[in-house]
């Protein structure tokens, strides 16, 4: 599958779309979903920015420093993309584990900013639907509803009304039935 021994091929997932990207040799040849691109990438002298020429097409890309090792927030063309990049090897492993029922949906909700919990709308153990408001945080003088990103059961509600929370602190977890099974 990969003439270079499998180490230079990646699976990239953005908004549910999956791209297979493979780097071939040092001449800047990249295969993306079977299409060959002559790629020239230059890190800019300014923070986070890269200039890319792909078959002559010109792009400026900015990439945010990451919280998670495989996660990249890419700014391209005025849009933002959250990309998950794993090597082919990791992808095989992940697929295998998922097929075997191991692994967990991403139901752990973190505080998106520092703030104050002013209202909790649901109780631990309750069933929630995607989009339900679980709690209300105040930050920057605004009330912000924190909604359930997936449907499931509300577990480990780690905060109480009046708590001050730090950015990134886990607020609650939603466990799907497949997680429980």
């Amino acid at each position: 599958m990969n003439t270079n021994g499998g180490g230079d091929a990646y699976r990239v997932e953005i908004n549910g779309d999956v791209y297979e990207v493979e780097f071939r040799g040092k001449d800047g040849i990249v295969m993306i979903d079977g299409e060959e691109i002559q790629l020239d990438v230059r890190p800019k002298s300014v923070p986070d920015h890269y200039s890319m020429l792909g078959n002559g097409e010109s792009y400026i890309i900015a990439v945010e420093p990451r919280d998670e090792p495989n996660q990249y927030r890419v700014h391209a063309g005025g849009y933002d993309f959250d990309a998950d990049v794993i090597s082919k090897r990791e992808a095989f492993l992940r697929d295998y584990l998922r097929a075997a029922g191991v692994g967990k949906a991403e139901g752990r909700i973190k505080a998106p900013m520092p703030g104050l919990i002013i209202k909790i709308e649901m109780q631990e153990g309750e069933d929630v639907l995607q989009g339900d408001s679980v709690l209300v945080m105040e930050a920057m003088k605004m009330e912000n509803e924190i909604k359930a990103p997936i449907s499931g059961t509300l577990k480990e509600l780690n905060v109480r009304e009046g708590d001050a929370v730090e950015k990134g602190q886990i607020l609650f977890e939603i466990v799907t039935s497949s997680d429980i099974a």
Partner: protein
Amino acid sequence: MFKKILVANRGEIAVRIIRACREMGIKAVAVYSEIDREAMHVHLADEAHLIGPAPASESYLSGDKILEVAKKSGAEAIHPGYGFLSENGDFAEKVKQAGLVWIGPSASAIHSMGSKTEARKIMINAGVPVVPGTEGGVESIEEAIAFASQAGYPVLIKAAMGGGGKGMRVVRSQEEMPGALDGARRESINAFGSPLIYLEKYIERPRHIEFQVFADHHGNVIHLGERECSIQRRHQKVVEECPSPVMTPELREKMGASAVEAARACGYQNAGTVEFLVDQEMNYYFLEMNTRLQVEHPVTEMVTGVDLAQLQIHVANGKPLPYSQEDIEMRGHAIEVRIYSEDSLNNFLPHTGRIRYLRPPDGFGIREDSGVREGDEISIHYDPMISKLIAWAGDRESAIRRMDRALAEYRITGVRTTIPFGRLVMRNESFRKGDFDTSFVEREFEIEHLQAREKAWQKVAAVAAAWLRHHERGKGRHEENAHTVQVMSESSGWKARGRKTELR
């Protein structure tokens, strides 16, 4: 003319006013909180004085400290900007009593318009159309339900002292009423220090169109055309334009006359904005009057050519308006996109952090009003607005294309922003046609739509992310195995790395 003005604000509006002062040959005095020592308004001012800790209540809302600095520095006038003390009539009065000039309307006009209920009464008397609503504040849930039953759902709960969407709730049925009342009161207390709320009939799918008015101290009142501000998220404007795509010269004349009437009715002086709701049949209703310079004032400046901030200072100095109504001519079309530090992929949640890189676009027709620079921190203490990007062109279609081009060029890292959202608005079919209302964002921008970007760019992002991962792994390995790599011939380096990866 004044020799020195104190600017009682921070961020882009403080910068805007400092620049107006500079251009008029007036010294500008900034005030700052402890975390704002490195803020842009401090750097651009002629003087800067510390007024307290980060929380606004102990600094930018502390009128006494600000007055103290004004006296110490010898400032003759105070410009409040928008937000903070700008619509605080008591402070305006204190400024006057201290022998200083308040760059804004009189305390009584601020008080009248600050109370939504009193403002309604004045407008009704002046013959300006208003939305049906409770005559005064609503205290009990029964009162609220009684009004709603009579006027018919949906109704809107609003903070009597409010503004900017804070303390607002739409109620579509009786069941929603208790929770909505609670929430609105809580926000109103937090934001304005008052639990007073009132109810209005909720106009379905209205447009939000406002008129810029200006009055001097000699009885002259003019308007400078309208601004279309229907593109809102969480009841907060995010994209504004001048003129409105649905305005006709006849309607402009009629609404402009109402706006001037509204200003006259409350004895208005200086810059003000009369906000109207316009329904699908182009009936308009007085919504409220903002007794200060508006965030979105630049679109009016670009189209009329009038510098509103300089005009405020000119009028506050007692000079007559240099323009009559006939002198105000609108040319071309301007659009503003507010760049907030928010994650538009994640329900517009405010995003705090340090701006690692920031470079706005430039070129013909592009204006940026910014309050922060590279290296600055977006903290939880203040509004998360980074800047306002404005595009002017000869016609609306060209202005939209120009804004779209500019947004694509804008580079910010370190915080997430409303730039991607702005681009989607510029490319939205309904927006391009001018066919939208205040429900635009919730109707057109389901979270799924926000995430479904141009696939061509998504592919580019995928390649870039993969390249980075690849490159980082290369680097990591290189450091780890510096010795091994060095003894390899250069041409076989890549292959060696491939093999190494297999082994780990």
